[in-house]
């Protein structure tokens, strides 16, 4: 499990992830030297993850102004990732969608694996509610037992915010993420 203030493990930095076009490289290379927000999604058909990405997409300009680059990491195939980009209208908005079908990145981040978190009563009720809000569940596009998470890192690759989801729809509050991003952006400014 990642902890705020600690550096992320090398296993996460070295995990190879692929983009929707099939380009594969280390997660650290995708991140570059920017501050990064990474949203780990369960699978690309998950309604709870779609709403989380939708909320984050709405705050991309704010994140970008603070020098934070935003990534989505799923666990389906690159074709699944491409369909997700298309369905969520993410092309060209400054958000990079990646995938790691081997789940190495998710394991290194200490994210939860739970079948109950996908097929239990709470996730099913939540899926129904999200469907009514306009976020339908699509066919599984990845490992349905893999749960998601939210990871904010500074340039030294230290954790500034981390949330590991226990089940579908257990998403971090984007306002909590933004608060951590604001504090991170201004920390060396000597502003009071």
């Amino acid at each position, binding site marked *: 499990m990642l902890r705020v203030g600690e550096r992320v493990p090398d296993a996460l930095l070295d995990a190879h992830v692929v983009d929707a076009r099939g380009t594969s490289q280390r997660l650290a290379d995708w991140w570059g030297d920017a501050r990064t927000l990474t949203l780990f999604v369960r699978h690309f058909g998950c309604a709870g993850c779609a709403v989380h990405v939708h909320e984050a997409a709405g705050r991309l300009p704010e994140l970008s102004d603070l020098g934070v680059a935003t990534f989505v990491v799923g666990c389906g195939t690159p074709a699944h990732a491409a369909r997700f980009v298309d369905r969520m209208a993410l092309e060209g908005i400054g958000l990079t969608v990646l995938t790691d079908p081997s789940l190495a990145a998710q394991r290194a981040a200490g994210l939860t694996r739970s079948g109950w978190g996908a097929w239990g009563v709470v996730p099913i009720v939540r899926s129904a509610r999200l469907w009514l809000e306009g976020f339908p569940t699509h066919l599984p596009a990845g490992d349905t037992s893999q749960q998601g998470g939210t990871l904010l890192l500074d340039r030294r690759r230290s954790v500034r915010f981390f949330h590991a989801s226990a089940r579908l729809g257990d998403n971090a509050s984007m306002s909590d993420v933004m608060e951590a991003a604001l504090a991170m952006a201004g*920390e060396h*400014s000597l*502003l009071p």
Partner: protein
Amino acid sequence: MAYLLHIANVLYLGSYLVKDMLWLRVLTVVAGVLLMATFYLRADPMWDAIGWNVLFGCINVVQIVLLVRERRPVRLADREQRLYQLAFRSLSPREFRKLIDLATWREEADGARLVERGEELDRVMVIAEGHADVHVEGRPHVHLGPGRFIGEMSFLSGQAPTADVHAEGDVVLVVWSSRELRAFLGASPDLRAAMQLVIGNDLVTKLRTA
């Protein structure tokens, strides 16, 4: 009597077609009144159905009053309007009204120490009029003008400020208690997000000029 029933149902149909919540509720209330008249004018009045419709009508009337209140124009005093234009334009006037009602206005004389380095800061401020300087190791670091925040980093990080801030000439400040502001924003997720946008814009501007 049958025509009342038909008019009521046409109004219900109309309420299903409109998208505006206020119109939907108004049409439903009128339709409900006609329906109650239909039930009452029968040879054997249907009191159970009338009772349920009274309940539905009361709920709708309360919601109509709330909606009308929400849609009334927001009045801002001159100095509030100036501050809104300076720093809070990304909030709706109603959001700004709620926020400003929580704050106090304070005047400080030239040279007054507004923030002391290392001392826990329990407030967030915005300069409404005048200027202030952020001093690091006794030297001016950043010059702050009207509309700029003071103490927002301590508010976000919970840590003591790392610089002093002095009034440069007489200043008028709008001051929020950090604790009250945090509790207020915690209970209003939309306003919290809007406020983060305001603070973020302020921070980015200051970082670019620092």
